[in-house]
């Protein structure tokens, strides 16, 4: 074994460049894989941890107490598949005014109230973030998601409650909690109180299992007692998926590309070492090395730098993942998130194993080599391919001879050429893919009201929600906007919340008026924008998913006691965790009659007009009662992700470039004497450089052209997965991002990678003294 280690150490010492290349490419591949898997493992991690800690409800059911008695409802806790249950808790939907200390005004909001005597329980064991649980009348605890803090007041009907605490339910079983005795008074006349039951089941890991659980529950209760569809934790988990989930697919794609290139490079390195080390192999065998020991020495030659690269890559991957995971951990308040230990162990081991597997076939070739033949040849075997290519290219008089010499070189070692081409192809595909991702994310930014309508004008005395403008205030704003030369167009915007029967979440409503809602900038995935009339709405994908509806469906919306059925006419590209609804002011007024006017004006400015300067001008014209803000159009998360994409793309291209560098270095090492002959008959350094660069330029160009469809295909495959992870479908504009000129430019990526990778060793070869090169063997 000592002899094998010594032989491997000797090989490493003789191939410092290759050793460094192996280390660097495996560092990149391991780091990318660690980031990808770390994010993937943590995409649902925070939710799952909080769910486990709170004994989250697999199912939240609302039961009609007029159809089932409390004993019938309580008996469902003893059903065969139920492992734990909580409730029944009385629940009701109310419209309340929330007043926050220090903030003038108040805002109407729909609140799902649940009556619970304590935050704990066998299911949905609430986390009390602040304050205490109600211990008397007129006290309320708000859900963390409402953003209302202790000391605020909530007025529902004639009841005025003080917020005494803030709690969190991982599956969002309610917006606020009061003592059960408070519920009836808060509901008011004509607003029926429901009974809420929370269950955990033995089998709840899949949609089909949950469906079976619901069927068992429905069968156990009188017909019609189970209201709407009970809310499954799976749906909440999907919609609550972390902010980083959409970024996981592309990081995985980059990780796979990096791994493939790494293995290809390792194969080339070991093949080259075997080819160049023919004499050495012969000597090793002649002094008693067995074939297995020769194989082991060549595998070790790769394994040592590979191990170093894997370990360094693991560390780098953790460093890159931490900032992204920290954001996610903060959202769920689950403490520090990190790359799981198993990933820190498994990824370097898997990468190392792949590398060793890649090294074994060429090492086996070394093991099988005849000692006599190896020693007798006295030098690396000359390539036996490519003569015909040389001959054909030599006839092309229109190209300099140095160019045709270079172009013929790849044919001498076809296997190496193929692996190099594939490595460049993957690198160039990563460039096309990365550029496409950047363009798609750019569309996400531009297909957005912050970009399309960058200036918002509202009243200064903003409370928790935007106060509505009176008719006189609207006239003032309109006259100022009309007087501004920079005004292109504007929409009025009225916001609100509506409850969705059977769902834990309410939906955010935006009513655009005074113009075409398409001016908002949102892209439509399907359908059309609502018309000005009543009862049409556009919704985002999550709304369709959670409500089980589709474009063309009718859906009943509620606000307090009002119910209006709308026709869904379009699916809006608005990814995220929120259910979003867009409708006309008239439709909103029908759902929420208390809505009196728009809360703000959203303005598009003429090309060349600075939104900030425009907003200042509007502010000055309207006076202190109004405020005008200009959106910067910047999105910090997207900026960070774009930076990550750029970094990964550069990393992959560097790795692919190192692959080319390795190939060219091997080529020069093997052809050193030949290069010496060229120089001895008058080849200048520049001609030498041109010849060597041309030896990879053509294959780089070819690989770059082939990489275009590969990169586009990858982009078209990954972007929908990213959109899905962001709870959204995608508009065609998000996919069709490549302009022809961009594709032509991207096709040159392979050429750039090849030339950049070749320049270093080619420059070295060009500058080498002729006598030195001639002595090389």
């Amino acid at each position: 074994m000592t002899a094998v280690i010594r032989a491997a150490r000797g090989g490493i010492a003789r191939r410092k460049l290759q050793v460094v290349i192996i280390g660097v490419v495996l560092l990149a591949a391991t780091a990318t894989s660690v980031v990808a898997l770390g994010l993937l493992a943590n995409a649902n991690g925070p939710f799952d941890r909080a769910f486990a800690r709170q004994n989250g409800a697999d199912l939240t059911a609302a039961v009609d107490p007029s159809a089932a008695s409390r004993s019938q409802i309580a008996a469902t806790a003893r059903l065969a598949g139920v492992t734990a249950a909580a409730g029944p808790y009385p629940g009701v939907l109310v419209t309340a005014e929330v007043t926050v200390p220090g903030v003038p005004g108040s805002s109407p909001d729909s609140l799902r109230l649940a009556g619970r005597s304590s935050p704990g329980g066998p299911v949905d064991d609430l986390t009390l973030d602040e304050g205490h649980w109600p211990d008397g009348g007129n006290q309320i605890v708000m859900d963390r998601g409402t953003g209302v803090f202790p000391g605020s007041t909530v007025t529902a009907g004639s009841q005025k409650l003080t917020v005494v605490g803030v709690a969190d339910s991982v599956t969002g079983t309610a917006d606020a909690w009061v003592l059960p005795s408070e519920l009836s008074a808060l509901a008011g006349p004509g607003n029926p109180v429901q009974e809420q039951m929370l269950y955990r089941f033995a089998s709840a890991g899949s949609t089909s299992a949950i469906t079976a659980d619901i069927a068992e529950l429905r069968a156990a209760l009188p017909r019609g007692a189970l209201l709407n569809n009970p809310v499954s934790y799976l749906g909440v988990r999907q919609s609550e998926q972390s902010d980083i989930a959409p970024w996981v697919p592309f990081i995985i794609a980059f990780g796979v590309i990096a791994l493939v290139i790494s293995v290809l490079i390792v194969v080339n390195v070991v093949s080259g070492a075997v080819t160049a080390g023919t004499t050495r192999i012969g000597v090793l065998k002649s002094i008693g090395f067995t074939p297995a020991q020769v194989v082991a020495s060549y595998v070790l030659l790769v394994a040592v730098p590979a191990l170093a690269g894997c370990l360094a890559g693991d560390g780098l991957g953790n460093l890159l993942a931490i900032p992204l995971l920290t954001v996610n951990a903060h959202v769920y308040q689950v403490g520090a998130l990190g790359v799981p230990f198993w990933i820190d162990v498994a990824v370097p081991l898997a990468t190392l194993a792949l590398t060793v597997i890649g090294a074994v076939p060429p090492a086996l070739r070394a093991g099988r080599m005849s000692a006599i033949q190896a020693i007798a040849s006295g030098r690396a075997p000359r390539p036996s391919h490519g003569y015909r290519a040389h001959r054909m290219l030599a006839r092309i008089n229109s190209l300099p001879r140095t160019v045709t010499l270079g172009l013929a070189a790849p044919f001498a070692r076809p296997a190496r050429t193929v692996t190099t081409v594939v490595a460049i192809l993957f690198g160039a595909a990563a460039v096309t893919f990365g550029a496409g991702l950047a363009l798609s994310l750019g569309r996400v930014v531009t297909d957005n009201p912050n970009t399309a309508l960058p200036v918002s004008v509202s009243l200064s005395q903003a409370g928790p929600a935007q106060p509505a403008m009176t008719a006189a205030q609207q006239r003032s704003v309109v006259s100022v906007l009309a007087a501004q030369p920079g005004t292109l167009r504007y929409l009025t915007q009225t916001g609100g919340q509506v409850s969705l029967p059977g769902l834990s979440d309410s939906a955010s409503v935006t009513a655009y008026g005074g113009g075409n809602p398409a001016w908002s900038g949102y892209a439509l995935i399907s359908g059309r924008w609502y018309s000005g009339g009543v009862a049409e709405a556009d919704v985002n994908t999550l709304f369709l998913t959670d409500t089980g509806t589709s474009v063309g469906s009718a859906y009943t919306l509620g606000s307090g006691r009002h119910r209006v059925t709308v026709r869904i006419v379009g699916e809006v590209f608005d990814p995220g965790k929120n259910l979003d609804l867009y409708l006309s002011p008239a439709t909103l007024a029908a759902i929420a009659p208390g809505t009196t006017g728009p809360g703000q004006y959203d303005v598009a400015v003429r090309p060349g007009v600075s939104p900030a300067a425009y907003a200042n001008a509007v502010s000055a014209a309207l006076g202190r009662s109004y405020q005008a803000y200009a959106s910067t159009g910047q999105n910090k998360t997207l900026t960070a992700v774009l930076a990550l994409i750029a970094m990964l793309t550069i990393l992959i291209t560097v790795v692919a470039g190192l692959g080319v560098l390795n190939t060219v270095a091997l080529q020069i090492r093997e052809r050193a004497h030949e290069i010496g002959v060229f120089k001895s008959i008058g080849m200048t350094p520049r001609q030498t450089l041109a010849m060597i660069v041309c030896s990879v330029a053509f294959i780089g160009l070819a690989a770059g052209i082939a990489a275009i469809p590969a990169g586009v295909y990858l982009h078209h495959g990954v972007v929908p997965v990213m959109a899905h992870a962001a709870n959204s479908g995608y508009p065609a504009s998000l996919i069709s991002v490549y302009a022809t000129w961009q594709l032509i430019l991207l096709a040159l990526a392979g050429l750039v990678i090849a030339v950049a990778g070749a320049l270093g060793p080619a420059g070295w070869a060009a500058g080498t003294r002729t006598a030195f090169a001639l002595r090389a063997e």
Partner: protein
Amino acid sequence: MTEHPEAIRLDGVTKRYDHGVAPAVADVSLAVAAGDAVAIMGPSGSGKSTLLNLIAGMDRPTSGVIRVGGQRVDRLSETAAARFRRRQVGTIFQFFNLLDDMTVIENVLLPAQLAGTPAAAARRRAGELLATLRIAHRRDAYPARLSGGERQRVAIARALVNRPAVLLADEPTGAVDTATGEEIGALLRDLNAAGQTLILVTHNPDLAARYSRRVVAIADGRIASDTGALR
């Protein structure tokens, strides 16, 4: 001899590869007249091949001055040295150094192509040389298919294709049998007779005596004897 201009002149040329080790070439001064045939003779490791490399501009001396055809070559950049080799010197080697993946004609044409000679002119010149060297019938063969003598004749043709002022031959018969060696020697003598300046490196005294007009013996990097030094 003095009526002939100098083709090559070396003044105090030393080439040292490593400090602390004896120089490969030590303070060599030598002048060769145009049209002369000089054999540089010495045992293995005496420095004769190094001297040839220095004259060909393939290596730089540690000190001293080298002029070939009046051009100083000891301080040329790599690019200038390559241009110098294209036009001023042709080199033939013991092991031929033909390019295996090129045919005979492609090997011979290569220096002309690198020098930018028009294709037709280069082909005409290569054809003439192959005919003169009686190898034209193998013009499309690969070196691996040729005998040692044929390979060396191809190497000579390649060395001469750009009409160099000086032909440098490093052990040109070292890798061929005796009969072929005789043939190559005769060929070189004929070329010299036609006016080609020839520097022949060999360790074979018989070859040196038969195919050159002047013999310079080298030992330990120094000139040990010279049968016809220029003044």
